[in-house]
């Protein structure tokens, strides 16, 4: 190629060259005695049309190059059009693999490498991490701290500091509706430090944290849109959490979720909300606060955190963190630059990205295999071209062009797939409301670029392999038959595909096992056969007890429904409502500290049928008698409660004292099975039950617990009854217990779905690969098969021959894949549920699935082999 600026110089040079030619010719003529004029004229005549000469010469500089490129490109496109199935397969396969990888790249890019959306000057923002010796000697560095530590650090670092908690799903009510809203508690400076502007209303002000200030809340854009219909007059409305009512004062802009990518529905000022989440000792009793800060003008982050360390060290006491603080470091809030621990959605994203890369690799291996087959199939043509004098470079060039055309098509498809799939994956992976699509221009360009590079690689390597002298020699020798092993590349690609598919299949199988185990988790109550209903609008402002008459009426009507086996009224529903009253227990000085998030002790005031309705059986003693307000005081405790309060002692007959300063003994008469609120945590809660008729608490939200065979079918009828009798019309007031616990299965279900998706695609792609290779081999060996038949081989022998070959590759892939799966297992292990990443059953199933897929993929070509015609083979001889 001649660039324009170089061209001008060459034009001048050509002029000069021709001028020189003419001058020399003229001199020769003069030397023969002609006059200068005559000589000039003769030289010109001899030279001919100088303009034309220049024109033709210029033509040889670069136009040829362009011409040839155009020609080659046309040739490449024509040859792609000639084989539409091949072209389509390659484009779709590569598009699929690259698309999946690109979508995950887009998500990880956003999650790990970019600053959070809507945050001003993210580079100036940092998170302080505290280092100190742990109780066990070695140093710990943590980004989570006590509120007390946050205050001390803030004193040193300066005013641009804020603390916040991770989002946690809290039961939130607004009007008659009740939902779980992802809630974050923050210090009031949070929005100011992040530098974000409200979409509506205002953010927190310093005065919002004073004891007398009314509680306020800021809601997220997604929550506003989904739950409040995007109503513009949402400001001033209220929402309630754990008996505190907050006035909505602002709406955050679209896409804003604080420094973390996960969705936030509600932000509450720590001073108002933390006490309900962590108890009155919230400033010291938990390490839930993360911090963001900006250095004061003129100071670096390092200087700022050094001041922070001083402030921490000068604090009078260390509140049991183990030792003196040794360091405070500033880390980027962008996770990829912070090297800090990350949430489940990020670790799941890593694993899924791994799966996407595997799928892309399989697709690429497959495409390379297909291109190799194509190159082999064309060997005669290639050899002919080489014999006719085409240079090897030119041949590779034409292959490269063809591959590039294919790769660009695939890149386009990949970008489209990534754009669609990216949103799908994001929805599956994250609870996030992003304002921008996963696949933007940058991701699209990277996708197309990588596709192009890979396409060229996948085309050129086979092209080179197929054009090697030995293959050409084979052609010249007139060889017709050839085993699969002749060109190593194909075998290697098949084995690689098999291995990668096994890894994905194993991942899927592990998730299936996890999911199975999680489904079998015993929450305590029979979650598949219980419906719970709130008989009271959950509005703390106007809390009035549910009238016994309403209870009875609802109870009677529900009990009359077909399929209902037990109905109970209770102060709170299992796994849904938590009730506390001041509690003292006989022989116990103070209650031991809580072991888990939902460890109680919870009070449940219920009718006797509660246990029949929930399926919580008595394991010791008996149930309370429930004889109305005049009946005896009696309590039933959970196994965990008995175990914690009176370890190794018979709990029956022990006294509970309910209510602040109570002295009346409520004897324990029985022990019932445990209730476990959380799948992951798995610890049972301490729960005790007393007759509803002798209720001691003023717990609102009286509930109805219904046991039935088919909860889903009964749901609408019970909703109608609750609406007409109790006047509670919100659909969220009546729900199955399965729906209550279902969100806990979310990450497992995500993992399962994603792995099933990727493994399914991978197997499909790998099967196509096996099919094409085996089918090709069978056609190549048609001659050999014919001769075998002529020598007495029968169809089953030939089928066995073909399948045997496939199985040999499958076995090799299998072994390699299992090794890879075992090595990669530790990355998924934390996401699985009570399943070892080396679970033998899961690995066996994955192996079996691969073998099966390989057999299915080679059945059609094997049958073709079985039909080999001996006459054809012999005639060809």
């Amino acid at each position, binding site marked *: 190629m001649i660039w324009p600026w170089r061209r001008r110089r060459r034009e001048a040079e050509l002029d000069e060259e021709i001028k020189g030619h003419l001058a020399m010719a003229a001199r020769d003529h003069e030397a023969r005695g002609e006059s200068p004029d005559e000589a000039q004229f003769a030289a010109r005549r001899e030279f001919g049309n100088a303009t034309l000469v220049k024109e*033709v010469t210029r033509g040889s500089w670069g136009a040829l190059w362009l011409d040839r490129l155009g020609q080659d490109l046309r040739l490449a496109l024509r040859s792609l059009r000639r084989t539409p199935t091949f072209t389509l397969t390659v484009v779709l396969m590569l598009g699929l693999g690259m698309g999946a990888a690109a979508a995950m790249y887009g998500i990880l890019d956003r999650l790990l490498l970019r600053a959070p959306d809507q945050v001003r000057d993210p580079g100036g923002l940092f998170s302080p991490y505290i280092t100190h010796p742990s109780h066990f000697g070695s140093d710990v560095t943590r980004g989570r701290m006590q509120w007390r530590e946050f205050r001390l650090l803030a004193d040193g670092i300066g005013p641009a500091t804020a603390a916040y908690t991770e989002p946690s799903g809290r039961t939130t009510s607004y009007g008659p509706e009740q939902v779980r809203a992802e809630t974050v508690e923050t210090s009031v400076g949070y929005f100011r430090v992040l530098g974000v502007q409200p979409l509506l209303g205002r953010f927190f002000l310093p005065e919002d944290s004073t004891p007398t200030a009314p509680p306020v809340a800021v809601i997220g854009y997604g929550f506003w849109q989904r739950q409040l219909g995007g109503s513009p007059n949402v400001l001033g409305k209220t929402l309630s959490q754990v008996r505190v009512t907050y006035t909505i004062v602002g709406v955050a802009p679209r896409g804003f979720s604080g420094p973390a990518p996960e969705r936030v529905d509600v932000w509450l000022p720590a001073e108002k909300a933390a006490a309900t989440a962590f108890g009155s000792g919230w400033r010291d009793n938990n390490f839930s606060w993360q911090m963001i800060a900006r250095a004061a003008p003129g100071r670096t982050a390092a200087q700022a955190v050094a001041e922070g360390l001083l402030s921490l060290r000068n604090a009078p006491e260390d509140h049991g963190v183990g030792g003196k603080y040794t360091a405070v470091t500033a880390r980027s809030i962008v996770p990829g630059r912070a090297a800090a621990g990350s949430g489940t959605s990020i670790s799941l994203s890593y694993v899924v990205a791994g799966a996407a890369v595997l799928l892309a690799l399989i697709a690429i291996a497959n495409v390379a295999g297909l291109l190799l087959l194509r190159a082999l199939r064309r060997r005669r043509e290639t050899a002919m071209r080489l014999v006719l004098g085409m240079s090897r470079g030119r041949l590779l060039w034409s292959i490269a062009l063809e591959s590039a055309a294919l790769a660009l098509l695939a890149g386009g498809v990949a970008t489209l797939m990534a754009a669609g799939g990216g949103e799908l994956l994001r929805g599956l992976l994250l609870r996030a409301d992003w304002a921008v699509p996963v696949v933007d221009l940058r991701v699209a360009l990277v996708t197309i670029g990588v596709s192009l590079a890979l396409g060229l690689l996948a085309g050129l390597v086979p092209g080179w392999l197929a054009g090697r002298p030995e293959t050409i020699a084979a052609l010249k020798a007139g060889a017709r038959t050839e085993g699969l092993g002749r060109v190593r590349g194909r075998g290697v690609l098949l084995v690689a595909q098999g291995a990668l598919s096994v890894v994905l299949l194993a991942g899927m199988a592990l998730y299936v096992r996890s999911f199975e185990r999680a489904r079998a988790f015993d929450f305590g109550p029979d979650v598949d056969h219980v419906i719970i209903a709130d008989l009271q609008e959950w509005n703390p402002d106007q809390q009035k007890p549910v009238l016994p008459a309403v209870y009875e009426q609802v109870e009677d009507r529900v009990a009359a429904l077909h399929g209902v086996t037990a109905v109970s009224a209770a102060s709170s529903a299992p796994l849904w409502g938590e009730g506390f009253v001041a509690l003292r227990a006989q022989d116990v000085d103070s209650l031991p500290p809580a072991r888990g998030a939902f460890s109680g002790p919870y009070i449940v005031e219920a009718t006797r049928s509660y246990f029949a309705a929930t399926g919580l059986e008595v394991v010791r003693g008996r149930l309370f008698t429930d004889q109305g307000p005049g009946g005896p005081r009696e309590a039933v405790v959970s196994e965990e409660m008995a175990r914690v309060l009176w370890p190794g002692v018979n709990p029956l007959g022990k006294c509970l004292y309910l209510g602040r300063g109570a002295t009346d003994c409520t004897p324990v008469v029985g022990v019932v099975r445990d209730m476990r609120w959380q799948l992951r945590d798995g610890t049972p809660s301490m729960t005790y039950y007393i007759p509803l008729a002798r209720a001691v608490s003023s717990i609102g939200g009286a509930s109805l617990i219904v046991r039935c065979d088919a909860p889903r079918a009964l749901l609408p009828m019970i909703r109608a009854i609750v609406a007409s009798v109790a006047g509670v019309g919100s659909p969220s007031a009546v729900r199955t217990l399965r729906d209550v616990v279902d969100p806990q299965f979310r990450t497992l279900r995500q993992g399962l779905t994603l792995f099933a998706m990727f493994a399914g695609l991978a197997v499909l792609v790998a099967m196509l690969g096996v099919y094409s290779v085996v089918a090709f081999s069978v056609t190549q060996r048609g001659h050999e098969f014919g001769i075998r038949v002529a020598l007495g081989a029968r169809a089953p022998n030939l089928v066995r021959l073909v399948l045997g070959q496939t199985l040999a590759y499958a076995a090799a892939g299998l072994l390699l894949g299992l090794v890879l799966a075992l090595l990669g297992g530790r990355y998924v292990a934390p996401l699985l549920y009570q399943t070892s990443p080396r679970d033998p059953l899961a690995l066996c199933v994955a192996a079996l699935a691969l073998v099966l897929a390989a057999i299915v993929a080679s059945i059609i070509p094997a049958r073709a082999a079985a039909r080999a015609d001996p006459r054809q083979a012999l005639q060809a001889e």
Partner: protein
Amino acid sequence: MASKDRPLSRIELLQGTLDLIILQTLRWGPRHGYGITQLIRAGSKDALQVDTGSLYPALHRLERRKFIAAAWQTSENNQRVRIYRLTDRGRKQLAAERSRWSQISEAIAGLMKPLPESEP
């Protein structure tokens, strides 16, 4: 391009042979374009006369394929001239072309032999 006013004795060059001839000519040392035409003419006893319209494109093409290399020199008359010389690649190419040429000419010579009497 054959035209009427050209002497009949002039031979139209076979496609591709010009390259061979240029390379062969440059084997005796670097030459400029005009020098090459003169040498070919003299070498073929005036039978071959190279058309400048073919020569310069051929030179530039050969240069592009790196069979020959060009450099500017100042002649004794203070005239800047472009001198071409054979590269190693060109030497190899020349050897290949020569053997091809001898094959072709042998083949053609074979074809031109008077046919033997046909046997029954």
